[in-house]
């Protein structure tokens, strides 16, 4: 972790070409250093943060005055930092019944501020202060401070499930990891009203930026693992399958078992696992098939690369198969030499500097918080399966000479529907995850997707795709906007890269045109907004027969359109 001084130096010369984002910071203590740390951390993440810092202790005024600087600033994100410390002082001044109301009143306040803005609110929860008035007996006393703090933090989680623009930044977990004595410096507080120690600032700002970046579609999707001395102890090629350290018997085997349990949980929540190891393939796979103490099995792994090519080549091959950016990948390897080579050749990939002792791997990785996310849906656990099927499909395609014959033989069927209660989480998630095949890269939260579904001037369409190999799930999202009586505008056209080269674009356009004809409009307007990642669709509208209007806009006249050939059937109800 960079120290505060280094983050501050980031701001001396902000590199050109960073994305600009507007963040407001409201707190009830002195927040100047936190503001500096957030902006400095932003630079490291490619963001030029335009930060509005409210005057000292103005959280209420800024939210409740409709003419406040906060609303005039029109922030994309509002970071709210109300401190446990100031709350403790309020607790002290209250009578017994007032103390009992502390958490509920603050929860009402959070609920209210969320309803006053459309900006995303990143709310810092409360690191515990045990005032030791009751000792451990406080756990029996609802008016005790610790009871109220824990009650608040717990109900805040529930609140963030209900309120779509509320995101909790878990500073409490962070303090649990590093300890209150690192987080709070009494003499700094006394002389400056600053509640976070200088050493805590980089951690807190990193957690805030983790959330902000995830909301902007930047998060990790894939974990690539070395084998020997990374997920088991020893070298399987030398020690044999029986000789590797795993489980509660041999050596420090339990360390690796627990490490694998963590990795398995990541996989179950949607992180794609891949193997990249210098080994003979059969020897490398044997523990996955036969070792009784392996937690990870072959069907947990999307791409298994065990050979004697360089790791750089293998990671590039994995990237080709998965079709996701290097910046969404994490590579774990115990060998510092391999780590450096990979960093040098693939600068965008994240390669944590694993500690020397494998016993330290987990606590080290917990602190890195590599896998922040802005969404989670129950189908995420199937993602690995889908990439495995994709690998099968690729080898099947090679047996055809003619692309049309291949596509026809897939027996593709697409389900076309609006946005519903059931598909809203997945639709929102796709708008956040899709970077490459995404024409305008508009990100939506679940709440915003639900609002689109209700808006009479919007036409939402969601596509799912099945074929003989399996179900790809919901893979394409369209949002059409009524511009005027004659025109529809394609506000959103995005597609998962899992289904490239299947004619899904043609099928989608046929569907859009059918909808447009039903509405009686004459033309459809599309727009391409370039980002560093969506070069793949630069010529999307040209390819589909739209006429350029200039400035990234395109037009398709319906009277000139005939349905495009494709090999996808509409699923009948």
């Amino acid at each position: 972790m960079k120290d505060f001084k280094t983050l501050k130096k980031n701001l001396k010369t902000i590199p050109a070409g960073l994305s600009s984002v507007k963040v407001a910071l409201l707190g009830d203590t002195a927040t100047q250093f936190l503001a500096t740390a957030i902006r400095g951390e932003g630079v490291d993440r490619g963001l030029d943060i335009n930060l509005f810092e409210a005057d000292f202790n103005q959280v209420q005024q800024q939210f409740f005055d409709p003419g406040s600087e906060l609303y005039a600033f029109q922030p994309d994100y509002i970071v709210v930092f109300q401190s446990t410390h100031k709350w403790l002082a309020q607790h002290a001044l209250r009578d017994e019944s007032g103390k009992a109301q502390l958490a509920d009143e603050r929860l009402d306040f959070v609920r209210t501020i969320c309803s006053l803005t459309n900006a995303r609110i990143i709310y810092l929860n409360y690191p515990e202060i045990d005032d030791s008035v009751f000792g451990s007996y406080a756990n029996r006393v609802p008016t005790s401070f610790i009871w109220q703090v824990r009650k608040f933090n717990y109900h805040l989680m529930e609140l963030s499930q209900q309120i779509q623009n509320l995101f909790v930044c878990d500073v409490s977990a962070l303090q649990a990891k590093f300890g209150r004595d690192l987080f709070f410096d009494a003499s700094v507080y006394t002389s400056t009203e600053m509640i976070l120690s200088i050493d805590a600032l980089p951690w807190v700002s990193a957690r805030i930026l983790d959330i902000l970046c995830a909301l902007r579609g930047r998060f990790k999707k894939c974990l690539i693992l070395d084998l020997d001395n990374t997920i088991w102890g020893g070298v399987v090629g030398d020690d044999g399958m029986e000789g590797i350290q795993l489980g509660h018997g041999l050596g420090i085997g339990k360390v690796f078992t627990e490490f694998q349990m963590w990795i398995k949980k990541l996989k179950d929540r949607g992180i794609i696992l891949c193997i990249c190891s210098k080994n003979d393939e059969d020897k490398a796979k044997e523990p996955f098939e036969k070792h009784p103490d392996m937690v990870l099995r072959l069907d947990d792994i999307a791409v298994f690369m065990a050979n004697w090519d360089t790791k750089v080549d293998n990671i590039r091959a994995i990237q080709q198969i998965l079709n996701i950016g290097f910046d969404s990948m994490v590579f774990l390897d115990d060998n510092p030499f391999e780590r450096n080579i990979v960093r040098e050749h693939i600068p965008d990939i994240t390669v944590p500097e694993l500690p020397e002792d494998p016993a330290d791997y987990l606590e080290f990785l917990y602190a890195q918080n590599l896998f922040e996310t802005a969404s989670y849906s129950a189908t995420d656990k199937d993602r690995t399966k889908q990439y495995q099927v994709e690998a099968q499909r690729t080898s099947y395609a090679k047996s055809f000479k003619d692309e049309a014959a291949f596509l026809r033989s897939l027996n593709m069927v697409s389900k076309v529907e609006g946005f519903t209660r059931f598909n809203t989480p997945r639709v929102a998630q796709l708008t956040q995850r899709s970077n490459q095949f995404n024409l305008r890269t508009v990100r939506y939260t679940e709440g915003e997707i639900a609002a689109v579904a209700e808006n009479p001037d919007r036409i939402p369409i969601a596509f799912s795709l099945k074929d003989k190999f399996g179900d790809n799930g919901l893979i394409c999202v369209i949002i059409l906007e009524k511009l005027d009586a004659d025109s529809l505008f394609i506000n959103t056209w995005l597609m998962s890269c899992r289904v490239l080269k299947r004619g899904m674009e043609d099928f989608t356009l046929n569907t859009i045109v059918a909808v447009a004809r039903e509405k009686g409009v004459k033309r459809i307007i599309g727009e391409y907004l370039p980002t560093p990642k969506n070069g793949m669709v630069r010529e999307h509208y040209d390819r589909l027969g739209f006429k350029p209007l200039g400035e990234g806009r395109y037009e398709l006249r319906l009277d000139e359109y005939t349905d495009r050939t494709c090999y996808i059937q509409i699923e009948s109800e």
Partner: protein
Amino acid sequence: MERNEIFSRLEEVFRDVLDNDEIVLTDTTTADDIEEWDSLTHIQLIVAIEKTFQVKFTSKEILSWKNVGELADCIQSK
């Protein structure tokens, strides 16, 4: 610790934290003499000095120094 050693280490801390290699400290140097030294960077300096000299200042001490000389006295007394 010798007073001139304290001063040379203090100078290093000031130059590093305030990002200015031209800073020279004397007994009578105050915040008015150094552009980058304000109430905010002051606290960064204190924390960095505490780490460098492995001492801990009391809140009262932090508010009491009138110049770098008094700060050096305080370090020397620890």
